[in-house]
């Protein structure tokens, strides 16, 4: 039986940024008059995620992925809209809510930098009140896939990025959370390390039934892990559905990525492309994203 674990409704986050004027005179003006501009990082998005799902959340840099994750994890307060995760309102119930989730930020470690990783693990064990028995069992389980034990007694700053990420992942799961939020868990990793991480995520999703929401720039992460994908651009949710559905809709057996100097139309003929190819355009920042598709005859 599925029931929805994460519910977001009309979720928005607006940041006020103040526009700095250039130059010396502008700098002086800035001191007295400040013009604020609203930046909609996340713009009225709604979605729900069921227990046990593994969902990929993608979008360009600055599209609003991380802001969404930070609202879902109770770090940021939504400007408007509602979130409920497992019966908690993340921001309001932060103290009890964070006991039920695990969070990994690929860009920065949550382990103490200058001391052995095992010290951070011990701290987390205390924070989440994990029993000795559970702690040992979980370390054993994680060790099987992540080959954790050789890393535990090295200062974190001496670990490679891939090793560090393995430790960070294990650390986020020590308290057996129901949900795991991963913000770019494979960023900067080599192919082997990526595969290692993916294998681990697949296992915790299938065996431990942990619900996973991950953001990534690497489409192969999604292909290998997630049945469902959400695409966000400029704060708006563009697509939410099965990866297969996205493929179907775009029917992209092959695709061409065109980056134009300025947005505009492209004449397929001028590009020397056959007329049996239909174009779907997807905007992606200032450049255009073109998907070529071989057009089946409509039946």
């Amino acid at each position: 039986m599925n029931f929805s674990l994460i519910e977001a409704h009309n979720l928005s986050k607006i940041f006020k940024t103040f526009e700095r004027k250039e130059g010396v005179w502008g700098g002086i003006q800035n001191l007295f008059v400040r013009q604020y501009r609203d930046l909609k990082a996340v713009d009225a998005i709604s979605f729900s995620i069921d227990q046990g799902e593994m969902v990929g959340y993608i979008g360009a840099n600055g599209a609003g992925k991380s802001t969404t994750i930070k609202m879902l994890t109770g770090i940021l307060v939504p400007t408007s809209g509602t979130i409920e995760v497992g019966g908690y309102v993340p921001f309001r119930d932060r103290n009890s809510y964070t006991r039920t989730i695990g969070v990994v930020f690929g860009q920065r470690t949550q382990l103490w930098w200058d001391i052995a990783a095992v010290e951070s693990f011990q701290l987390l064990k205390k924070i989440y009140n994990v029993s000795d028995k559970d702690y040992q069992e979980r370390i054993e389980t994680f060790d099987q896939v992540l080959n954790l034990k050789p890393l535990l007694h090295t200062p974190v700053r001496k670990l490679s990025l891939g090793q560090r990420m393995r430790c960070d992942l294990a650390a986020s799961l020590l308290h057996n959370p129901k949900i795991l939020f991963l913000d770019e868990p494979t960023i900067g990793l080599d192919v082997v390390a990526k595969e290692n991480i993916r294998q681990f995520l697949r296992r915790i999703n299938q065996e431990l039934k942990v619900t996973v929401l991950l953001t990534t720039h690497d489409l192969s992460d999604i292909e290998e892990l997630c049945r469902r994908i959400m695409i966000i651009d400029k704060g708006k949710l563009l697509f939410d559905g099965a990866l297969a559905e996205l493929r179907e809709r775009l029917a992209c057996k092959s695709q061409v990525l065109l980056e134009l100097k300025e947005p505009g139309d492209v004449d397929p003929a001028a590009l020397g492309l056959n007329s049996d190819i239909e174009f779907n355009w997807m905007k992606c920042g200032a450049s255009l994203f073109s998907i070529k598709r071989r057009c089946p005859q409509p039946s």
Partner: protein
Amino acid sequence: MTTALAPYLAFARIAFLQILAYRLRYFTGIITYLVNVTVYYFIWKAIYSGNQVIQGFSFSQMITYVAVGWIIRTFYYNNIDREIANDIQQGHIAGKLTRPVSYQWMHISQAVGESLFRLLMFTVPTGAVILLIYPVQAPGSLLSFGAFLLSLLFAFIIFAAINFLIGTCAVYLQSILGLIRAKYFLIEILSGLVIPINFFPDLLVRWSQWLPFQHISYTPLMIYMGKVGGKQLASVLLVECAWALALLLAGKWFWRLARLKLIVHGG
């Protein structure tokens, strides 16, 4: 109760371990503090030439005041404000807020760990060197010494709580380097570290009684020297305790307010 406290003991422990990695920094600190005491020794020596007693302080009492003042500073000092500013500017705040612990008490616990480290690796050697070189008087009495230790605990909390309040300003101001520097000098003066509070002009002495700063240095030192006793001792300790609690509560409310405005940088 013990399980509620366990995470914070663990934070104190990990801060202790983390600082071990930087222990060299504290060895240079011993020299800095020794130089400070030496400078004030000669300044006061010049001031006392021809005077037996100023404002109720004999020269040897003054040297005791200065020396013990710097020795206890090695213990209560922390950089919570800088750490919070760093959390916010570098975006580390995100990860820290995903833990089911109070952000304020996390920082204060880490400061406890740091202060325990400082006590062993900084206060003890600095104290030993200073006591060897300068004629520092023993505490007024055993009671004075006990009350002094209690007062020192409150001083630590007041110092930490003020730093937490200053650090929280980083949510609004982003860069608080100027604020931190201003606070640093304000506390050096108004805590009575540099000059005993009763040397100040009358107006400032009266104002100072309504401020928390003098309880960081002046109050513990006056207790140590046995200049506060009897009923006065109890009431002074009570006021100090009240300030510690009030500043902790203020920090808690301010942080709750600031979190609504929090922006996380990077990533």
